[in-house]
């Protein structure tokens, strides 16, 4: 079956951080911003996917009908996609497929998460529900602990240092300073990172993303529909890829790489008929500093074991040759689990429509998103260009 062309036509987001609003409230605000940006009425939406991981901590499941009702379109079908931290990338992918296959012409994808009502320890416990709980969460591993274990493996294999990991945080915090919707607005030094409190050795507080509340929304449409209705295409989706992987770390031959990222990017690039060299910037999944290092190597921006060096050389800064996480990434912009993967797409929209303000990457034509579920049990990769 041939796929129809799909466009990303709008994007909206709340600020990330601590909020008194519920996940449902946040979702409505993000969706409203996306709709108003292109002066679209909600009734043009034919279907929706919601990305949300921990709604049950708010005692609220079945968010779809609540969000659709809140938008005044209660008859529109919406269901939740849960894939831990890649819920957003996964929901985006499902909407893309639905439009590409001709089932719908216009879809809304909203990612939302509310976590700040939980104490750090309880939130840490909730996050372990995304691990292979029998071997990981139930045995005392937290998510920082799992990525810390991957960091130790990477440090052993490639002599990556804690100072190099810290450079990732410094760069992403610098970018976050230029993003008014970012959770953390704080310029930090390598020294600050190294001296911050240990979360799970060797990862420290500033190696880790914050617990964030927030929501992000995007609207997708078939190019057929846009032509018929005289709307701008804005951004084209060139490639979509998604893959699964073992849930637990111990099941993998190599803990220094995330196979699902490699497979998802391979699919996305094959569909787009492009290579990593064509990408002008990327929003990658940097839940911890080591995750950005591993992502750069898995996606092929650099050779294995060379990512830390590239970060040190400044190549991944806004003015470098491979800008990574211009938004500030999960590290500084924040990581509201369900919203994260959609928020990455929002940043690509801002960059490719020249609306990224101080963090605008000049002349950027091709952007990509990379969203990882848990420690790599699933990944989603998407590639976009200006129309």
């Amino acid at each position, binding site marked *: 079956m041939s796929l129809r062309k799909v466009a990303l036509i709008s994007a909206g987001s709340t600020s990330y951080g601590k909020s008194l609003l519920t996940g449902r409230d946040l979702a409505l605000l993000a969706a409203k911003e996306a709709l108003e940006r292109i002066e679209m009425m909600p009734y043009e939406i034919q279907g929706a996917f919601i990305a949300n991981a921990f709604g049950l*901590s708010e005692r609220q499941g079945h968010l779809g009908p609540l969000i659709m009702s809140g938008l005044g379109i209660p008859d529109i079908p919406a269901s939740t996609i849960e894939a831990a931290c890649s819920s957003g990338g996964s929901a985006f992918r499902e909407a893309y497929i639905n439009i590409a296959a001709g089932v719908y012409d216009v879809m809304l994808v909203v990612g939302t998460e509310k976590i700040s*009502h*939980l*104490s*750090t*320890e*309880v939130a*840490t*416990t*909730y996050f*372990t529900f995304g691990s292979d709980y*029998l*071997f*990981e*969460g*139930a*045995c*005392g*591993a*937290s998510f*920082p*602990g*799992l990525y*810390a*274990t*991957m960091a*130790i*493996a990477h440090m*052993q294999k490639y002599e990556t240092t804690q100072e190099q990991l810290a450079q990732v945080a410094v760069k992403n915090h610098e970018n976050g300073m230029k993003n008014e919707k970012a959770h953390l607005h704080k310029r930090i030094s390598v020294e600050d990172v190294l001296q911050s*409190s*240990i*979360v*799970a*050795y*060797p*990862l420290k507080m500033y190696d880790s993303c914050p617990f964030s509340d927030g929501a992000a929304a995007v609207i997708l449409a078939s190019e057929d529909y846009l032509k018929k209705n005289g709307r701008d295409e804005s951004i084209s989706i060139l490639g979509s890829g998604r893959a699964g992987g073992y849930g*637990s*770390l*111990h*099941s993998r031959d190599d*803990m220094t790489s995330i196979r699902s990222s490699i497979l998802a990017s391979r699919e996305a690039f094959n569909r787009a008929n492009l290579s990593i060299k064509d990408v002008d910037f990327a929003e990658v999944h940097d839940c911890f500093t080591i995750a950005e290092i591993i992502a750069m190597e898995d996606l092929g921006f650099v050779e294995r074991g060379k990512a830390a060096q590239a970060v040190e050389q400044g190549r991944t800064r806004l003015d470098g040759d491979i800008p990574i996480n211009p938004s500030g990434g999960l590290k500084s912009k924040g990581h509201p689990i369900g919203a994260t993967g959609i928020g990455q797409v929002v940043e690509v929209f801002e960059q490719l429509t020249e609306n990224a303000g101080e963090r605008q990457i000049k002349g950027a034509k091709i952007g990509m998103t990379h969203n990882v579920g848990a420690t790599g049990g699933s990944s989603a990769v998407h590639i976009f260009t200006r129309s």
Partner: protein
Amino acid sequence: MWELQGEVVLYTSSQDHNSEKSTNEGPLLTPEISKSVREGRLVGYQCLDCGAKAIEVQAYCAKCGSSKLRIAKLESRGKVLAFTIQAVSPKEFKNDAPYAWSVIELDGGVRISGRIASIKSPDNLRIGQRVQLMRSEKSGIVFEKILE
């Protein structure tokens, strides 16, 4: 501040399970793994077609796809492949922190993960450290350092 509602299921605490089987053929499911850990031993699955062994909840062999699996005893000694020292822990382990969690390669090659008892600092653990399974006093899979 809301608290987590309900009890988190820690599979190695004593709990009833009703999957006692008369034969050891078939998929490897959670109760078998939990029961063995509680008793201070480890079981995995072994594929009757390709011989692969692993400790996973598994209905088809991860290596060759065969459904002919049997439950097999695993070695209880091995070495640390990578580890972390958890300073900030999930709520259930608050009183134990800091503690070590690691990925371990058992003798014979099967990989597993779990805590390492009595380790409070990275200075007290190294990659390659020999460890053995402990009968778990609390919850989850726990190993201890051994000197050989």
